[in-house]
């Protein structure tokens, strides 16, 4: 087996002295191209885990190694998307997607000269998530689901190796959510970036991920690791199979135990 792409080793993280550890003694390793999901009760430090992976927060104890290097600052090879699409209302959808290229190197230096080329790339990406023809619309002219698609495009435009998603579909209605599961699945099947998906939705985690981690209440620890051995490509219908239901139930039992404790 190759070296792990993300290696988290005995990590504690506290935001300040008063509130105690947000996550505690977390260890896991991810292969490159792996899709993992973190589930757990609210406030269990899932988002903290994301900050750790992106280099936004250093751990108080332990090590985080991404792509062979110890993480000490912002990583630049990560893309992020959140529950709120956080698109800039004064920029068109296209310009919103281009935003990371104005910031991250090496694109930043050549942004002015190669703008046309980058715009083409952004358009192709928007097309692949079904936002064809909306490039020049403003975010507030789009529906919630469309905004979230654009937000994911923004997270992917600089071709990050690691995609961090913090409950990206939580604010959407059930049908739109399932639609976007498939959008994400197709993007991942095509580009094979490494994904950390933080979610409350066990079906979402089971449908999309290779491996699901269950976290405890604050301070967050990893309680269980479940490999999802449903073969790919997975069609949406797989959600209604017994095999799928069994896995979801198993994960649900873990969560139930945490909530009772």
């Amino acid at each position: 087996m190759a070296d792990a792409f993300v290696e988290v080793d005995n990590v504690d993280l506290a935001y300040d002295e008063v509130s105690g550890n947000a996550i505690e003694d977390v260890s896991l390793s991810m292969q490159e191209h792996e899709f993992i999901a973190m589930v757990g009760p609210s406030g269990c430090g899932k988002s903290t885990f994301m900050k750790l992976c992106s280099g936004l927060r250093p751990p108080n104890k332990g090590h985080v190694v991404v792509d062979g290097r110890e993480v000490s600052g912002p990583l630049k090879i990560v893309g992020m998307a959140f529950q709120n699409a956080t698109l800039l209302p004064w920029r068109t959808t296209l310009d919103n997607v281009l935003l990371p290229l104005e910031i991250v190197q090496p694109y930043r230096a050549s942004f002015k000269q190669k703008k046309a080329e980058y715009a083409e790339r952004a358009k192709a990406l928007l097309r692949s998530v079904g936002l064809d023809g909306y490039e020049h619309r403003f975010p507030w002219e789009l529906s919630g689901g469309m905004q979230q698609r654009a937000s994911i495009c923004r997270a992917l435009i600089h071709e990050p190796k690691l995609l961090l998603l913090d409950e990206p579909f939580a604010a959407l209605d059930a049908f739109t959510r399932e639609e976007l599961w498939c959008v994400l699945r197709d993007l991942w099947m095509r580009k094979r970036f490494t994904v950390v998906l933080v979610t409350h939705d066990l079906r979402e985690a089971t449908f999309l991920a290779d491996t699901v981690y269950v976290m405890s209440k604050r301070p967050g620890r990893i309680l269980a690791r479940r490999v999802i051995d449903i073969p790919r490509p997975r069609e949406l219908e797989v959600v209604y199979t017994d095999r799928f239901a069994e896995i979801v139930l198993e994960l649900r039992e873990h969560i139930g135990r945490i909530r009772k404790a």
Partner: protein
Amino acid sequence: MVAIRRRTLERWSPWIVLAAILIIWELICRVFQVSDFIFPAPSAILVSLKQYAGPIAGHAFQTFWTTMAGFTLGVVVGLLLGFLVGSSRLMYTALYPLMVGFNSIPKAAFVPVLVVWFGIGTVPAILTAFVICFFPITVNVATGLATIEPELEDVLRALGANRMDVLLKVGLPRSLPYFFASLKVAITLAFIGSVVSETVAANEGIGYLMMSAGSQMRMPLVFAGLIVISIMAMAMYAVFAFLEKRTTGWATRGMDARA
């Protein structure tokens, strides 16, 4: 048809109200034979506006440019201070209480101090306009900058963006609607500042004109001065409202789309 008529009515409604007030005002003055020395009728004010058109225009110009000079100063200082206060928590904590304290000083009480420092005339008028109008600009710009969504900041910082990147790409455009909203408030405040200063310490400007006309019991001229000030202030307000709509339409249109 009814809808169109309704909309026309809506468009003309401010003028209709204005006309109604003027007519009632005129009627009251005539029916009760109110003396011009106490409360001049609109017709008397109009006569005096015409009669002294030349001097009024001269004083109005003086007031206009001192106001604009003070306002410009206020915008520059207000923006810089707002940027400073809004971009750093430390600065916010350190400077904000002081600014609130300064803002709560009645600016009219400040004019004598300025007169001691700079003598009577244009300079105190400009400075009074300035000190009265920079505060709302500062507060608004600082608010716009300080309320950037933390997630968005994370997205950019994870890409290696520095503070300046975040401020320029997100903070400044975000605070533009706040900035323009504050300009509308600031320009009217600037007029108040310059006129207050002129009434106390100047020999030029609408404030001075009203003061000296008042002391000679020429009330129609005093009212003419009042009207000229309010017309100037309203015109400048309209200019900035228009600018606001042109430059930051996304802020209000976004609201419409969501509604």
